[in-house]
């Protein structure tokens, strides 16, 4: 069963380029192209392809918004985001809106084919570079800033906000901000739990 592919992109050369990459593939049926969101949506009213290659930058609407609309109306269509942008936030938003994958425009033919195959199986696909951008920094242990560590030590010593503020030559509001941030970062409900977690993570010692 051939996979029908449709592309939405406002650059004619991109459309032609991808079409020529795919035209010799036996399992791909080329369904045509649209150059803006409006014509993509009107095409979909008549016919739904299996996979849409969707550019993020379209003249009348962002591909990210279009993706959401298409998935809402035609949930069985798989969408692969296509762009020159390697920004993590764009990729993340596209996936949040229902895209099954993301390809940068410098992707190779094999990456393109692998992408189409993978999303047809219902899985997520990212080209290598896109995947790199999504890698989040590792860290179960939250990082504390220098001042947060100072405030934490003083809290563990039993000092009040006022005392800490005087000792560090900062305002009480500042100390309070640090305290609140510490509670949030270490997921503590109150000061007692904060101190226990601080010991646990070895931020302070006996």
């Amino acid at each position, binding site marked *: 069963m051939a996979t029908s592919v449709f592309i939405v992109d406002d650059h004619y050369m991109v459309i032609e380029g991808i079409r020529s990459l795919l035209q010799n593939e036996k399992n791909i049926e080329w369904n045509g192209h649209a150059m803006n969101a409006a014509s993509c949506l009107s095409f979909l009213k008549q016919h739904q392809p299996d996979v849409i290659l969707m550019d993020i930058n379209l003249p009348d609407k*962002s591909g990210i918004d279009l993706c959401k609309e298409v998935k809402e109306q035609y949930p069985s269509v798989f969408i692969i985001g296509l762009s020159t942008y390697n*920004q*993590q*936030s*764009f990729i993340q*938003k596209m996936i949040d809106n229902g895209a099954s994958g993301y390809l940068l425009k410098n992707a190779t033919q094999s990456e393109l084919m692998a992408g189409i195959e993978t999303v047809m199986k219902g899985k997520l696909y990212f080209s290598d570079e896109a995947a*790199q*951008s999504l890698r989040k*920094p590792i*860290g179960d242990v*939250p*990082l504390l*800033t*220098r*001042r947060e560590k100072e405030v934490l030590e003083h809290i563990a010593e039993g000092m009040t906000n006022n005392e800490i503020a005087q000792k560090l030559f*900062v305002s009480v*509001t*500042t100390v*309070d*901000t640090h305290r*609140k*941030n510490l509670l*949030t*970062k270490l997921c503590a409900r109150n000061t007692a739990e904060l101190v226990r977690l601080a010991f646990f993570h070895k931020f302070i010692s006996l």
Partner: protein
Amino acid sequence: MKGNVIITAGNAKAFERSLDMLDSSMKELQRVAQDMMPETLVRYGLDAAVKDLCSDITHSGVLRVNYQSIGLEDAEIEQIAAITIYRIIEELLNNIIKHADVKTALVQVSKTNKRISITVEDNGKGFNTAVIRGTKGIGWYNIESWVEFLKGKVDIQSGPGKGTSVLIEFKNP
């Protein structure tokens, strides 16, 4: 308007060159506009923009920047304040890259109690805080102007060999 126009070979060349110049002018304009107001900042807000900034720097290999944000999920920050915060972080990170001689840095932006605090720190060379005014560069002057614009305060902890920690706080209007 005339339809097909026949022009001389010389004019045709000039025409081509004009088109090329237009193209590069447009590219340059896009680049300047993007620098002035980064697209991610406008579309997705401060958190996403700073996250991307830190991630871009990390991926360039020059410095590994750890970014943490607290309370920015549905923060309503005025665009002018947001771009100012963005610039401050950019400038501080540039300082680290230029002077700190270090591999990692930490950036934290938090919104707590209607106050916004920005922390940028590193474990690098540090500097004598008494001397910052004497530097030739415009960096610190910029940072101080921006903080003044935000009606905030700056607190710098540093010392030779002791790393640097910069904390900026202001009330979110």
